[in-house]
């Protein structure tokens, strides 16, 4: 049993560290996610790059790229455990919540790296005009938290399934739809002239913040039921 003298944060960080180190050796997930993102971005910019499109379109395109890249890479954090059969050992050596938080942190890192790579490229390769950089950055952060928060537990669920396929996307999409709608709506404001700054997007921001909080809290509470099997 894990010793109770190490705090929750320490144990979570230990899980996170383990995953980052494993990832560093093979670089599988980060490659998959970046490759997907950059390929999609290239296709988008190739077909749409020079035209002057309304801001909603750019906003939608950006989050479509991020969403699908996330779908290709975020399940990895649990699926790898199952496939390399290390999940049983992990279950024996750690409690549910530190495992979840560690894996959540891992997915957050993946998404942050993705955004760092994609966002500047997106802005340069397309004609999107960033009128409100502060809002945009906040949205990137909230989007990352929301995406990782909602999908990490889904990743755990599907890692136990015997037929994975498109299950991750199928299960995640309905849950992510409100997040995506909010993100796209707010990003539109960040790309358009009359956005109104942070205040103009205040209702979206409230939605996004509460979404992240609710999803992560619910995940923490439900995770042990997924993990025990």
């Amino acid at each position, binding site marked *: 049993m894990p010793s109770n003298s190490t705090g929750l944060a320490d144990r979570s960080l230990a899980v996170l560290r383990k995953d980052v180190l494993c990832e560093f050796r093979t670089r599988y997930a980060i490659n998959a996610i970046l490759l997907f993102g950059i390929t999609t971005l290239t296709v988008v910019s190739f077909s749409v790059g020079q035209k002057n499109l309304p801001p909603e379109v750019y906003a939608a395109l950006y989050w479509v790229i991020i969403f699908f890249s996330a779908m290709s890479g975020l399940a990895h954090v649990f699926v790898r455990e199952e496939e390399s059969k290390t999940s049983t050992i992990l279950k024996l050596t750690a409690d549910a919540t530190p495992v979840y938080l560690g894996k959540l942190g891992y997915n957050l890192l993946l998404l942050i790296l993705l955004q760092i790579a994609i966002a500047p490229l997106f802005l340069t390769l397309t004609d999107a005009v960033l009128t409100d950089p502060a809002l945009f950055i906040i949205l990137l952060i909230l989007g990352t938290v929301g995406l990782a928060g909602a999908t990490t537990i889904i990743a755990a669920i*599907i890692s136990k399934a015997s037929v*994975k396929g498109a299950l991750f996307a199928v*299960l995640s*999409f309905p*849950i992510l*739809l409100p997040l995506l709608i909010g993100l796209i709506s707010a990003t539109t404001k960040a790309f358009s002239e009359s956005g109104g700054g942070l205040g103009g997007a205040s209702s979206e921001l409230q939605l996004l913040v509460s979404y992240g909080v609710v999803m992560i809290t619910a995940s923490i509470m439900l995770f042990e*039921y*997924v993990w025990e099997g």
Partner: protein
Amino acid sequence: MILKALLFIVMTWTIIAAFVFPAPQQAIGDASRIFYFHIPQAWVAVLAYVVSMAASIRYLRKRQPVDDDRARVSAALGLLFSVLATVTGSVFAKVTWQSFWNWDPRQTSILILLLIYGAYFALRSAVSGYQRRARLAAVYAVFAFLAVPFLVFVIPRVLPSLHPSDSIIDSSGRFTMSGMTAMVFGCSLAAFTGLFVWMYTLRLRICGLERTGFEE
């Protein structure tokens, strides 16, 4: 027996009244009659989900197989009724606003419900092992439900940029419903709820039989 006869009478009466009495919304004419069927279907779809989620929570706590049956049966009915609600809703949208789909928040929320049900069954069919399947499906049912209220809050924000759609029906339909319209609507609501309850209990009884085994 009496209850089923009652259900038959109420539903039959509702159907007749829906088509014979004057249309509820004169501005739109006959198309508004669908409102008698569409809203109760959507209501049952949501009710089925609440039942399913409650059974899922129970299952996670007590691990009784019957709760998993309840969750599954209710979800199947919910899927049926949300398909009905989505279809009748888009037929209505086509007639009234000339397009089958326009991402109106309420349309989107019934679509999400439909997608959640579909995902629920996709998950069930992908997991082997009875207890694991029940457990994971239960977690998903509870977790997925959290997404729906967010769409309810999307409505106030997105509404300025979308044309007001259901608001025409709901605010003016609900509160200025004439006595006759309200009566037919109430009957329809009762009839569809009764239908759900009957189908639910019937299906559950069959599951119980399958579980304990029987020879035909």
